Structures are given as C-alpha cells and as structure tokens.
C-alpha cells in the first residue's frame, strides 16, 4: 500500500488496465456487472486524478510526482513518469471524460459489451500514459498502443462506414507517428538517451550534436505526427470519418482527449526540444491554424449531419489551440491549454448529446428534426448550455480560452486576432443555426413527437458536464494557476532557444546501473 501511495502516477495509469483485466475475467452474459465494474474503475481513476490535481503544487517548478525506474538497459529506456501543470489538467480531463463515456454508452452498447468496456478502460490507460511519460520511448509506446483500442471501438461498435473510418484513422495516425519514431531514434543516437528532461537540458544548454538542419528535420518529423493527430488543416480528413462513424463513447474520447495529444505533443516536445525550428515554422503554422479555424467553421456550417457538424467544429477549435501555442505568448499558450480542456468538455458533451438523440431516433440528420424544444425541454436546455459553451459565450468556459488565445494572437499580429475572431463568430453562426433548426419551431416530423426526455442516468452525465462548464467559465483560477510555471517554462525555452537556458530544475536521472 505504501508503494502504491508513493507511486500515484503508476497507479493512476494502470488502474484502468487493472479494471480491464478484471472485466476480462467476468462472464460475457453478466453485462450489467461488466458495466458496473468499468464505471467503478473509471470513477476510482477519476478520484485519484482529482486527488492528484489537488495535490499538485502550482508553485513548484518542473515535474512533480516523478517516478523513475530503469526499464530496458540497452538502449537506456527508463520508466520515467512525471507531471507538470499541462499534463495534470489533461489527465484530469481524461479521467473525467471516461466515466461519462461509460455512462453514455450504458444502454446504447448492447453487443459485445465485455469487449467494449475492456477496450475503453485500456484506452484510458493509454491516454493517461501518454500524458505522464517523460521518456520518449515510453511516450511512443503509449501513443501507439492507444490506437488499438480506439481502432476497435470505432471499427466494431461504430456506424455504417465504421471499418473504413477505423482503418483510415489508424493509418493516418501511424503514418505520422512512424516518422516520429525515426525522429525519436535519431534523437537518441545523437544524445544517447530517451529521457525527455535530459534531452531538453542538453538542447537548452546549446547541445552541439544537433545541427540546425537536423533540428528542422526532427521538428518536422515530430510536428507531422502531432499535426495529424490534432488534426491541422491539410491533415484533417480522417477526423470527420472517425468521429462520425465512432460510437458515442468513441467520439467523446476521440474529440475530448485524443486530439489533445497532438497539441500536448507540440507543447511538450516540439517547442522545448526544437526551439529554433519552432520559431522558424511558427508563421506558417499559424497561417495553417487560421485556415483550419475558418475552414472548419465554414464546412461545419453546411453539414446536414449533426455529428459531422460537431466534428468539423473540432477542426476549427483545435485550430484555435494551435494558433495559441504558436503565438509563443503567455496568454496564447495558457489560453491554448485551457481551450484544450474546454474543447474536451464541451465537444465531448456535444457528442454525448447527439448520441442521446441518435439513441432515440437513429438518425443525426438535422432536417429530420425541428421543434424538439417542445418535446424534449430538459434535453434542449442542456444542449443550449453546451452549445453556448462551445461557441465561447462569456461566463462559460469556452470564452476564457478563446479570449486568451485571441489576446496572444493580437500580440503577434493584429490580423491573426481578427481572423480568429471571425472564426468565433462563425462558430456562433453554425451552432446557433443548427440549434434553431433542430429545436425551435413546430414539430415537423411526427416521429419526434413521442420522444422520451432524459433519463436519470443521462441527467447525471449532463449535470456534471454543465457543472464543470460553469465552474471553468466562472472560476478558471485553479486551473490557470497550475499552468503558470509550465507555460512560462515552455515560453522561455522556445523564445530563448538554445542560447542561455542553463537552469537544471530536476536532476536528470542517473544512467541506470547495469
């Protein structure tokens, strides 16, 4: 037990996997017990994550709760875990969304229940693992391993074109990460370690082994992987397919967490490790991000399918995040991180809402609906709040993030801020227009007249989401406070490049003894 309390990150990471293992031994027929176990484990994980979040000290620089243990001695790969403000938020987000996803699929998943929840929990381990790894190799393992459960979630429990979507998803992501693997190995051959902190220290100390062109290529290798994952504008085509075809839980996790891994990777790896290249490529990336914002918004506007609309809105929102990151300003990056969480919560919630409607009507076409506000009043109210959060209404969470990002962009170039603001307006247009068509007016389709309103389980989900939305909108301080040092650190690294940063905050782990 003492060991467990001393290794909170390991426990947190592998608790869901333990749950998956338990489920593996449950009988296939007892579906409810399986669901219960899954929920219990995910809630336990969430509790742990919350405890970790609270225990995380906002004033202490560097990584916290560090665990180090040599794993493979040749090449020296360490089981190196640790979190900073950035990861603690994302872990919390993952741990929060997983129980919601489980609840959201409680009734809608009826076939192969056992496998479904098994994969879902395994997926959670993968996600948390990605956020806690401080060893490039370990990170890569979680990064790739996570694809498999997601692939199954989409491919087995998805909608009509699920196989296509699943394969497209996995191939796109793997193509990107394959090059990242080459980059990681190359980085290792140059520096002799996979340890993120050690490499970062070397780079900051003006490490001579990494020439300018090597840095550029490495940056591109890493960035491509992350850009595909985000997805940034020209690499986004897998996203609508995957989101639309995935089951609700899949979409929630996909939009809520998986996309964040891309932006997380940029912050964690691209910027600190390759500062010079990051600075060089920033203008191009910012432009792409803005294109993504506008393109995503415009395409979302014309979607006849609600889920697809939400999916494209993700492209736009993540454009914001990338824009914020590559402003290299405190406000921009903080806003970006905050927006990552917001998007996770509100888009996740939107997918859950669309999923609920789909469970009732087995369609997501906007034209099939109309006047739902009269038949489903509670549902409509929740939908409204979430939609407003997503479009960035002040007092709700979306506003804080978008505001900070636009602020950051403003510092770089005014035109960026203006264009981003146009994106915000467009978001309002497509969300509200959709809301209007679906919920207002007369009930046009007879099938919609007799729909049951929310069940208690659904209410629990939505209430918790709305609670978070409000809290994050009204009182962002607890979150932002924990980001300060991490953000400052990233900015320092990227701005001052390999020039002067000599501060070694945590001693690099000693070379493992044989």
């Amino acid at each position: 037990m003492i060991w467990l309390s001393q290794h909170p990150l390991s426990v947190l990471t592998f608790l869901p996997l333990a749950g998956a293992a338990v489920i593996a031994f449950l009988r296939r027929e007892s579906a409810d017990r399986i669901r219960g176990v899954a929920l219990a484990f995910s809630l336990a994980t969430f509790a742990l994550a919350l405890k970790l979040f609270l225990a995380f000290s906002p004033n202490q620089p560097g990584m916290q709760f560090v665990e180090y243990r040599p794993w493979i001695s040749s090449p020296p790969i360490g089981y190196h875990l640790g979190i900073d403000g950035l990861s603690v938020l994302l872990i919390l987000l993952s741990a929060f969304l997983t129980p919601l996803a489980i609840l959201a699929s409680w009734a809608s998943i009826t076939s192969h229940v056992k496998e479904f929840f098994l994969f879902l929990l395994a997926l959670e381990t993968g996600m948390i693992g990605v956020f806690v790894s401080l060893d490039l190799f370990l990170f890569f393992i979680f990064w790739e391993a996570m694809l498999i459960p997601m692939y199954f979630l989409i491919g087995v429990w998805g909608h009509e074109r699920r196989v296509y979507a699943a394969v497209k998803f996995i191939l796109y992501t793997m193509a990107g990460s394959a090059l990242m693997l080459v980059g990681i190995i190359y980085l290792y051959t140059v520096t002799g370690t996979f340890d993120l902190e050690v490499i970062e220290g070397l780079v900051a100390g003006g490490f001579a082994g990494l020439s300018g062109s090597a840095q550029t290529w490495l940056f591109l290798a890493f960035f491509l992987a992350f850009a595909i994952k985000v997805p940034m504008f020209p690499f986004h085509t897998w996203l609508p397919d995957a989101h639309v075809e995935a089951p609700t839980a899949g979409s929630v996790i996909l939009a809520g967490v998986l996309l964040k891994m891309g932006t997380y990777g940029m912050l964690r790896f691209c910027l600190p490790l390759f500062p010079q290249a990051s600075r060089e490529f920033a203008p191009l990336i910012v432009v792409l991000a803005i294109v993504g914002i506008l393109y995503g918004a415009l395409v979302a506007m014309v979607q006849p399918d609600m889920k697809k609309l939400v999916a494209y809105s993700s492209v736009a929102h993540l454009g914001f995040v990338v824009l914020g990151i590559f402003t290299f300003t405190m406000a921009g990056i903080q806003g970006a991180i905050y927006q990552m969480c917001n998007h996770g919560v509100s888009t996740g919630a939107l997918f859950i809402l669309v999923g609920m409607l789909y469970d009732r009507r087995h369609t997501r076409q906007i034209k099939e609906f109309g006047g739902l506000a009269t038949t489903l009043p509670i549902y409509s109210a929740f939908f409204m709040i979430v939609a407003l959060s997503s479009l960035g209404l002040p007092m709700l969470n979306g506003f804080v993030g978008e505001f900070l990002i636009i602020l950051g962009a403003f510092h770089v170039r005014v035109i960026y801020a203006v264009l981003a603001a146009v994106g915000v307006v467009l978001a309002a247009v497509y969300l509200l227009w959709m809301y209007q068509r679906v919920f207002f007016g007369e009930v046009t389709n007879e099938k919609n007249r007799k729909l049951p309103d929310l069940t208690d389980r659904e209410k629990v989900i939505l209430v918790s989401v709305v609670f978070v939305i409000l809290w994050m909108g009204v009182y962002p301080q607890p979150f932002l406070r924990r980001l300060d040092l991490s953000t400052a650190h990233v900015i320092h690294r990227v701005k001052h490049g390999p020039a002067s940063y000599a501060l070694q905050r945590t001693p690099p782990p000693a070379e493992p003894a044989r």
Partner: protein
Amino acid sequence: MITVQASDFIRILPQEILSAFAILVMVFEPFLPSSRKVVLGWFSLLGVVAAGAAAVRTSYSLGPAFNASIAADPFSIYFIALFLLVAALCLLGSFNYLQRDNINHGEFYALILMGTVGMCFMAASTELIMIFLGLEISSLSTYVLAGFKRHDGLSNEASLKYFLLGSFATAFFLYGIAFVYGLTGTTNLMTLSERLSRTGTGGTPLLWVAIVLMFIGLGFKVSTAPFHVWTPDVYQGAPAPVTAFLSVGPKAAAFAVILRIFLGAFHAVGSVSFQMLWLSAILTMVVGNLAALWQSNVKRLLAYSAIAHAGYVLVGIAAGSAEGVSAVLFYLTVYALMNVGAFILIAPIAGTGERALRVEDYTGLGYTRPGVAACLTVFMLSLGGIPTTAGFLGKFYLFRAAIHAHLIGLVIVAVLTSVVSVYYYLRLVVVMYMREGQPQATSEPLPLALRVALATSVIGIFVLGLFPLLLKKKGEAEASPRHTKLAQVR
C-alpha cells in the same frame, strides 16, 4: 592420422541428437499403425527437447571443431536454440493437422528434425562446404515437406517451384563460393577473413562478383526481392504447419549465413556488400508490403508479409554493426514466434484440406471463436509492429542500429512501408471483428498441443515486447565485442 577428439563431438551434440532421433523415428515408423503415428510426433518433440539440453551442454564447451569447419560459439548456440524453438512449435502445430488431412506419416517428423539439423549446421559452420551441405539438408527436407500432401495438386506445385528455384539459387551460391575459393584459396571463413584483410584482395572486382553471386543465392533463400517470386506460391501450397516451418527456419538459417559471411568474413570488403544489402532491403520492403495489399488468400498475404520482414532484417544487416547484428538476432526470434504462431493457427481455422483460406472466410471469427481470433490478432499486431508486442521492439532495435549507421533514408522507407503493412494486417482483424456473418472457418476446438504452441508464442511476444533484455542480452553477447568476431571463435 585422423585428429578427431571427443570435444569435437560435444560441439555438435545438438545436431547429433537430432539426427539420432530422426533416424529412430524412421526405424519405429513401420511398427506403428497409422492412427498412432502421433506418438512419433511426441517422440520427435522429445528429441528437440533433448537437443535443447545438448545445446546447453555444448555452450559449456565452446570452440571450433572438426578442423575448424564448424564452431560452437554463442552465435551458433543462439541460432540452434532458435531453430529448436521453431521446430518444437511446428511439431506441436502439426499433430492434429496431419491426422485431419490424412497425411499422418512418420516421415514428416523425421524430415522436420532433419531440416532442423541442416539449419543448425548452417548457422554453426565456419566452412563454406559445411554451410553448403547444411543448406542442402535443410532445403531438401523442406522441399519434401512442402509437397507432403502428395495427392494435392497445390502442394505438389509448391514443392516443385520451391525445389526448382531453390536449386537454381543454390547454383548461384555455389558459384560464388567457387570464385571466393579461386581468389583466396580457402573455403574456411576464418582463414578467408584473414587472407582478405592481409592480402588486400578485398577490392578486386572478382570478389565483388563472388559476393553478388553468393548474395543472389542466399537472397533466394531469405526471399528478398527480386528473388522472392517463389515465396507466395510455395507458402500457399505447402501444408500450413510446414509453411510455418519454412517461413522461419531456413530463412533464419540463411540470415545466419549472411551474417557470418557478409559481416564476418567479408567485412573487409565493405562497400559492395553494403550497397547490395541496402538496395535489396528497400526493394524487398516495398515489394513485399505493396504486393501484400492485394492478396485475398491469407497464406499468400502472410507470404508477402514474410518477404517484407526479410527486408526489415536486411535493414539491420545493412547497418553492419554489432548493434545491427544483435538487433537481427532479436528480430529473428520475434519473427519466429509471431510467424510460426500465425501459420499454425491458420491450419485449424482453414479446416480439412485447408479450404477456408480467403480473408472473407474469417468473417465474424472474433465472436464465434474469441480465443483463436485474439491470438491471431496478437500475431497480426506484432507483425505490424504495434507497441507492447515484441514486433515493435524488434523493429525498433533494427531501426536504431540503422540510424546509428546513418541509414536514415532506409529507415524512413522501412517505417513507411511498415505503416502500409498495418493496413493488410488489420484487414484480418477487420473481418474477424467488424464484419457480420457466419464464418466459413471450422469451429472444432483446438487440440492441446496447438494450444501449448500458441500460448508459448503469444506469451513470448508479450514478454519480449516488454522485457526484451531477457533475450536481447544474449543477442548482444553474440554480437559483441565487434561483429568481426562473428567468424572467430572465442
């Protein structure tokens, strides 16, 4: 007169024991009724285990034997252990198959053992004559095994194609040896290496010719492009457990020979063999992976995948370093586990006469036979190189060695093609889990022997995927301190 000592015999103890068991199998064969031939199978398995024990014994008295024509060094012990593992898995996987397809003849087991003997000799020999003989023993055994379903046209055809192209390749290999001999006056690898570096004949075009010829010959055996054309037909036509055997055993043995010859004896020659390996690696990876995309027959699909994997191994060899060698050794073991596993699993799925072999036949298998499908999924993921499976770490080590040797372009081709490969590996997973319908595949329960073999492979894949050093340390011992030591005996 004849200077043969007792230690000489201890240094080839595994081979001796295997041969003895093979002969005993033949002796007992006529006395067993057809229904009880499986006893011979278990007996052969016993022989493999005994040979394993013998290999342990041999590892305590390392050194050259029989006038330095063979060496018991860590390198050879490693490969012998690998071959024994492959033989054991294939034996376990074949018991039921033989009975079911009514080809339950004792010769099968004897041939598997003999083939293993040949492969052991290939890996252990430091004399080109012995390598050649080992190659022939393993080849002849596998030619017969490929055609073991005598009344099946496909099996005949496989056997014939394997035989014709194999002999063709052998001729090239031999011709290469002839030129090496003509140039250096020796066929002993150690002497050869010495003479090459001492006389500086390394650069002569004649040696290049010899190297190219030998590489063509060995390239056929490991099925690198463009010498791979036989592979799909042979793998498809041969009985599935045999395919398992010949997709790994002779291939690994030929790689052992390539390592010994190209990195050991010819290391002084350098550039030509490197260019060749490099080019061949790229071609093989691209051809194997792209061709696999269009296959609808599972065995053919895996055949092209096996071609592609030869390409990955070549990446490690092209690195030309001790690191590369150790990566290759590790990878070959991993490859053995996953490929043998996949092929022996195909057999019970395909049913009597191997009817259900199309990818579509696997529809819904994930639900009708969850265990089988899960195993197959593990093999596919490992073949595709997904982390936490050994397949990933294997590739990782190969790529690391190559990047260390500044072969970045090669590695990029390798990773991209391996992404392509994920597509076709996942096709099986897709049909098993994501398509509705009743599987064409049979649903008889797996026999115990097969379960043991599969469990070994799956557990091995995960254990090596997470704790590679259990094996990797060994692999490194073999390759260190310098790869040039390969041909020498400590």
